[in-house]
């Protein structure tokens, strides 16, 4: 078309884009390191399934229509990327074709056809997207001008390319190809336009033009397309559509095995961490580059807030604003962060020389405190760490570890945390349980049940980890007793630690009190390793999660099984038999730390389905999208004063399902939901029961 113009456009467009991207990447490299380059195979697998497969967009029933819309636009982009390269070449040489996609190859024709249909499909999707934003207006969406601009640009891209080809078609077929334009023509595969019905249709739309007019349309549409594309590319990094570029790497670099980045095991012995305030995230530069990439990638789709128990109950944590605020702060301080990182590279380890460097580094501190000013305290402490947000995020943003790291900064460095936590921390410190009940009473519940202590028989096959609630809470003790009944009926060789057991430290860790957590973990691991414990049955998903995923960081390696999983296996192995005698409508509430954290969804359902003569009916929010009871992440030990109560919201959902029994598998859920039922004055109609209790009652 015009090599000169094409060169100028590409130089400006790609040059500016490269400059922006360089800045963005430089900013990421100024953040803390994160090890995300291992296990490439697994990462590629995630990339294929989650990113290219659009798993979380198409996979959610509730959002299927918009998911399909997005998927088609995404796949369309992938397909049309090749077309863009062809067009760039076209700018230099008329009739340019990429290798293998020329007219001599069947692939070339196939691609033409694919491109043709894709453009039509993307155009329809764009129209649907407009309709959705303007007419349907889902509440989770932020209707910004950027969204409309980008949709419009995509529309222009499709229309301009179709008209460009359409004009070519008309010139070639209706006007005898006066400009001697190139088109595919092969004795075997036929003529290009047999393969491109949409282009032909577009051509007919402009068939009224004269040959000269058509030529002008063709040239105009070509440049409109190329320029629009370069503009599009350049505005991406400045808004939420940056995800077009960053979501693929973000998915590639996502956490493996554990659903999000594990809480960092902080070295509390190192004195410099206290001086340099490097415990947790106190400052912007303490985010790691992957967390920065998460922020770049947030698409503000709002799925996170829609499923967030705190947002739904009117608390100030709005994850999409949270991300947006942090991203804005990151950009606003980009230069300082980069300069600071450069200086940090000069640190030698020599205290005297470093003191000067550190002084210089301090100049580049952001004006506002990260927590307190940028992110409000109430926002930070609202999170229940339920992971609903992460589970639905199409681009696998990890919200919870960032929140916990910020809490660490607050709790450890600033001493700023909800004061109610003090009681629980003190209880942990002195008596190894958050209520502060005498540690010597920990095994009282088992009196008269003939339960072995590890101290008496360290060679048992299983350790039953009872947990604080199961040990001290009158209500949850019934679950512990039921579990003992089941294990005895099955002839399982087990023991408990008795007064040697302590809180695992789960809530302390998630409330940012790493010191308290490590204290608990150290003592527990010492006890467990002394007894050479190998297999643990945990009656609490929070204990399970901590024992299984947190303790290995500190040298505690055990096979940890949740009691529902274990019971299910006992039934499958025929060690116990359960009667199908549970009457009344039955439903199941998935605990977050059992489901979303540990992927246990089927075992509880299989047990329940086997004993209910009414079958098991699912709650509207179940499985991976279960709704938190409100007690995770240390929230059990904090006051819930803002908005409505999460447990009541969940209990109402259960009541609305007309359930007569709601089964749970977690002592927190048990407490919260039973309490919610009392609040709704429905505790007589709807019984909240742990699965162990139900099984013990219906043993054959």
């Amino acid at each position, binding site marked *: 078309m015009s090599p000169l113009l094409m060169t100028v456009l590409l130089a400006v467009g790609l040059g500016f884009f490269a400059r922006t991207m360089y800045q963005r990447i430089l900013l990421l490299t100024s953040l803390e390191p994160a090890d995300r380059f291992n296990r490439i195979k697994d990462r590629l697998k995630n990339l294929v399934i989650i990113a290219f497969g659009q798993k979380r967009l198409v996979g959610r029933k509730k959002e299927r229509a918009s998911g399909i819309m997005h998927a088609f636009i995404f796949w369309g982009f992938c397909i049309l990327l090749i077309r863009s390269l062809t067009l760039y070449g076209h700018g230099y040489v008329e009739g340019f074709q990429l290798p293998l996609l020329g007219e001599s190859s069947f692939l070339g024709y196939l691609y033409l056809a694919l491109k043709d249909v894709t453009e039509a499909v993307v155009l329809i999707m764009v129209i649907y997207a407009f309709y959705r934003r303007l007419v349907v207006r889902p509440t989770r969406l932020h209707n910004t001008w950027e969204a409309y601009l980008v949709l419009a640009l995509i529309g222009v891209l499709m229309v301009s390319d179709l008209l460009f080809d359409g004009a070519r078609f008309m010139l070639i077929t209706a006007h005898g190809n006066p400009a001697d334009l190139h088109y595919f023509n092969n004795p075997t595969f036929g003529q290009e336009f047999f393969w491109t019905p949409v282009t032909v249709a577009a051509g007919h739309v402009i068939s009224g033009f004269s040959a000269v007019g058509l030529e002008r349309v063709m040239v105009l549409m070509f440049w409109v397309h190329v320029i629009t594309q370069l503009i599009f590319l350049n505005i991406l990094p400045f808004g939420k559509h940056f995800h077009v570029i960053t979501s693929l790497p973000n998915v590639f670099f996502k956490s493996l095995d554990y659903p999000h980045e594990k809480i960092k095991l902080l070295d509390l012995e190192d004195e410099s961490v206290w001086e340099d305030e490097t415990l947790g995230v106190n400052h912007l530069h303490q985010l790691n580059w992957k967390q920065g990439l998460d922020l770049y990638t947030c698409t503000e789709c709002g799925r996170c807030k829609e499923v967030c128990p705190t947002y739904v109950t009117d608390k100030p944590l709005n994850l999409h604003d949270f991300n947006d605020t942090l991203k804005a702060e990151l950009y606003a301080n980009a230069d300082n962060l980069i300069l600071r990182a450069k200086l940090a590279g000069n640190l030698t380890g020599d205290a005297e020389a470093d003191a000067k460097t550190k002084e210089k580094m301090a100049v580049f501190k952001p004006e506002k405190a990260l927590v307190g000013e940028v992110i409000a305290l109430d926002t930070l402490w609202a999170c229940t760490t339920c992971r609903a947000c992460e589970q639905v995020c199409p681009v696998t943003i990890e919200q919870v570890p960032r929140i916990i790291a910020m809490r660490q900064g607050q709790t450890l460095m600033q001493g700023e945390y909800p004061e*109610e936590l003090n*009681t*629980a921390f*003190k*209880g942990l410190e*002195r*008596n190894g349980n*958050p*209520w*502060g*009940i*005498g540690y010597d009473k920990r095994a009282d519940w088992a009196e008269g049940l003939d339960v072995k202590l590890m101290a008496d028989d360290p060679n048992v096959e299983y350790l039953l980890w009872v947990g604080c*609630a199961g040990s*001290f*809470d*009158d*209500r949850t003790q019934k679950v512990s007793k039921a579990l003992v009944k089941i294990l005895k009926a099955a002839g399982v060789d087990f023991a408990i630690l008795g007064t040697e057991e302590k809180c695992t430290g789960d809530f302390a860790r998630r409330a940012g009190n790493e010191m308290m957590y490590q204290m608990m973990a150290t003592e527990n691991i010492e006890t467990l390793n002394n007894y050479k414990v190998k297999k643990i049955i945990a009656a609490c998903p929070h204990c399970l999660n901590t024992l299984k995923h947190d303790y290995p960081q500190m040298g505690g390696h055990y096979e940890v099984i949740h009691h529902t999983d274990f019971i299910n296996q006992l039934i499958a192995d025929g060690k116990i038999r359960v009667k199908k005698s549970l009457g009344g409508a039955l439903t199941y509430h998935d605990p977050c730390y059992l489901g979303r954290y540990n992927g246990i969804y089927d075992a509880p359902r299989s047990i329940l389905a086997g004993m209910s003569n009414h079958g098991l009916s699912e709650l509207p929010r179940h499985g991976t999208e279960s709704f938190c009871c409100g007690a995770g992440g240390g929230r059990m*030990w*904090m*006051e819930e*004063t803002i908005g409505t*109560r999460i447990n009541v919201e969940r209990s109402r959902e259960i009541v609305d399902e007309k359930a007569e029994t709601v089964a749970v598998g977690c002592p927190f859920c048990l*407490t919260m939901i039973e*309490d919610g039922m*009392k*609040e709704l004055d429905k505790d007589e109609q709807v019984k909240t029961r742990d699965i162990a209790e139900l099984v013990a009652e219906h043993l054959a």
Partner: protein
Amino acid sequence: MTNILVVADIKQGVLKGSTAELLSKAKELGAATAAVAVGSNVTDLAPQLAAAGSDTQYIADDPSLEIFSAAPFAAAVADAAKAFNADMVWFGFSETGKAAAPRVAVQLEAACATEIIDVAIDGDVVHITRPAIANKVLQKMKINAPKLVAVVRAGAFEADPEVTGTENVVTLDPPEKDMAAAVKELISDASGEIDLADADIVVSVGRGAKDQAGVDLVKDLADDLAAGFGSSRAMVDAGLMAHNKQVGQTGKIVAPSLYVAVGISGAIQHLAGMNGAKVILAVNKDPEAPIFNVADFGIVGNLFDVIPLLKEEIKKIRA
């Protein structure tokens, strides 16, 4: 002979019972006793202080002392201690005592011990006893310093009605103003209700009371007993009680002599806030309610039937 100076615990112009308790103990130890009253319009309290067992009354009476401020308060106490040549200065357990005691100790170059529950004098040697490690053990300490400033735990000593003293008023110069900080205003809970943390008896209301009428009924009982009035979290959520009245894990932790739980089932979150009470009385219609596991006395019944009967019985006993 040991000289013991007891700091008068005055709240809104009224001398609190703890002052007499401390003076009785001092006399029991065979010490020479004095009391110091610091505040505005406190001169009138001198006869009461004498009656409570002090033989000298140091009075620092000045309008500037009306609102408590730790530094001038401590300065006045230290002046009295020097004038009396006190070997020990005792504070009753109160926020003012906790704030002023360490300051007085510094000024007198004395040892400072808080939360003590017993004192023994053996010749020149003073021993104190105080709980440690969350009340799990009692710690007996020998005081090596020549002087001791101590904060005595509430209810540690008993007032002996037989004990009296003689009136011998010494007026102290008002202390210098604290240049570092001036307290401008004291904002207190205007309800005039008894502070839960201080109350010797606490009556708490739970979900069983259902509504405002139920709350009022239980509140009447609390008033009859001159008790602090608390509640479980459910009542706070229901908007029937203020948040600062919530007893429990995430609310106030109380340890009164008598805790009356009315219509409270006793979930562990609540128990964590009150299981330090000496005596627990529970009223609940559900005999299975976990509150009965910790209660010393339990009444199974509808609180709307039980509370009026209780009130009547209290009236009878009082009459």
